[in-house]
């Protein structure tokens, strides 16, 4: 009986949080689409989420592509299928690893920063101060971050795709002795537009998830430093889990025939 009560309580809490989050995002998006627009804030977020995440996303993609080529070689050589390495690298990077790894890295870097910044503003009354200065916090703080997240993640994933494939090329040609021209031909031969744009669709959704979680948990943080710390943890954990769950759902929707 106690177990049923506990499960019921958790379920009700889940429904309550989902409802609050939905209302929060509805307010942020609808109000963000109406003037006045804070372009400077939007540009700042483009810079934070996009440009400043390039090194971490680039490095992750580079080494993932390199490891992928190396691992595929050691596995595929057992049944003489080394020729498929280029295809495996490019398809894995564009369809899955590019968007998912970029999403997880940005969740750690940007989701945490958003929750910490907005959370600190909340507990030090800076959000209230915005309201008293006739500035809607939803328009000024939340909407630019959400829009920038949706727009910047696909751009980061394009970079991750290119760098990841290049990492595979480097290992395959310089370490494993593949012919560069053949490798490039094999990479492009079986790659379809859908492989790339499905990854970009995923990236847009992941960008929305990361910025939403960062903003929601930061905006609703309570107390002092401890509250901000909890908000940061919740933002990263919830964004990471949602990215993995959503990735499965999107893969099923985009590729299941």
């Amino acid at each position, binding site marked *: 009986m106690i177990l049923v009560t506990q499960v019921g309580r958790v379920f009700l809490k889940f429904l309550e949080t989902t409802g609050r989050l939905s209302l929060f995002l509805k307010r942020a998006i609808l109000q963000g689409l109406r003037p006045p627009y804070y372009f400077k804030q939007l540009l700042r977020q483009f810079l934070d989420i996009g440009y400043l995440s390039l090194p971490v996303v680039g490095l992750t993609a580079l080494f993932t592509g390199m490891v992928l080529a190396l691992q595929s070689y050691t596995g595929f050589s057992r049944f003489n299928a080394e020729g498929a390495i280029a295809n495996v690298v490019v398809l894995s990077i564009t369809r899955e690893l590019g968007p998912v790894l970029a999403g997880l890295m940005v969740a750690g870097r940007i989701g945490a920063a958003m929750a910490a910044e907005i959370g600190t503003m909340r507990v030090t*009354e800076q959000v209230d101060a915005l309201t008293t200065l006739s500035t809607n916090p939803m328009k000024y703080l939340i909407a630019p971050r959400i829009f920038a997240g949706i727009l910047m993640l696909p751009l980061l994933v394009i970079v991750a795709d290119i760098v990841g494939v290049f990492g595979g090329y480097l290992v395959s040609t310089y370490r494993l002795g593949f012919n560069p021209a053949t490798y490039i031909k094999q990479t492009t031969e079986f790659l379809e537009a859908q492989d790339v744009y499905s990854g970009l669709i995923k990236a847009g959704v992941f960008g929305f998830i990361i910025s939403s979680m960062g903003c929601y948990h930061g905006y609703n943080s309570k107390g002092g430093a401890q509250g901000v710390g909890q908000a940061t943890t919740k933002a990263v954990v919830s964004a990471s889990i949602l990215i993995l769950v959503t990735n499965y759902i999107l893969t099923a929707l985009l590729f299941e025939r």
Partner: protein
Amino acid sequence: MEPKLSVSNLYKSFGEKQVLSNLSIDVMPGESMVIIGGSGTGKSVLIKCILGLITPDSGSIKIDGHELVGQPMAKRQKFLKNIGMVFQGSALFDSLTVWENVAFGLMYEKKMAREQAKEKALTLLATVGLDKRVGELFPSEISGGMKRRVALARAISTEPNLLFFDEPTAGLDPIFCGVINTLIRDCVKKLGATAVTITHDMHSARTVGDEVAMIHDGHIIWKGKASKVDSCKNPYVQQFINGHADGPIKLETTAEEVA
């Protein structure tokens, strides 16, 4: 004459705790009202209800006769344009420089050009006794007393006609307290604004207030001229202004009860 600010029968609770209970108070135009009361008696909650940062459970809040309770945010923002607020912790935007903090309302609300807003912000900083070099610093680089002055400059930047001060001298040394009190009094007079100040500090209350009201158990228990507060017979007011441990105001938990 119609009150500038009229609060009537205001109730607000957080869970089981009733913070505001049938609170009513009127502030006349041009008046400087000081609200005193112990910690946790609902002073800050009252201001936040007026500003729309907290939604009251019931009651009425009117500014210039216009009802604010239950109004959508867009409508409330029309009134917020004429309101300035100095928060207890200053609440300066730490990602902006000092002058950008002061010019925030000018740039975003009054749509003033950046250069023009900077010029006005530096003039306002001079008004509160801060050098223009301070304008280029970030809030984390200035002292608590300077932050409070910057917050005051920010609050008066858009020339509001209703000003709120939440514990403006809390945590400051006596000299800075005196400076802030004088600045508040001068700025309010210069703007011809109506002011509501929340404070524990009786020296501050006597300096900035025309009227003093005392809040206890979520409602106003005494209201009168600032000059009469010392001679009033209300035992709650007397205990509060004299800082006596014994009297009608009981601490929620005494040391004996804990033991």
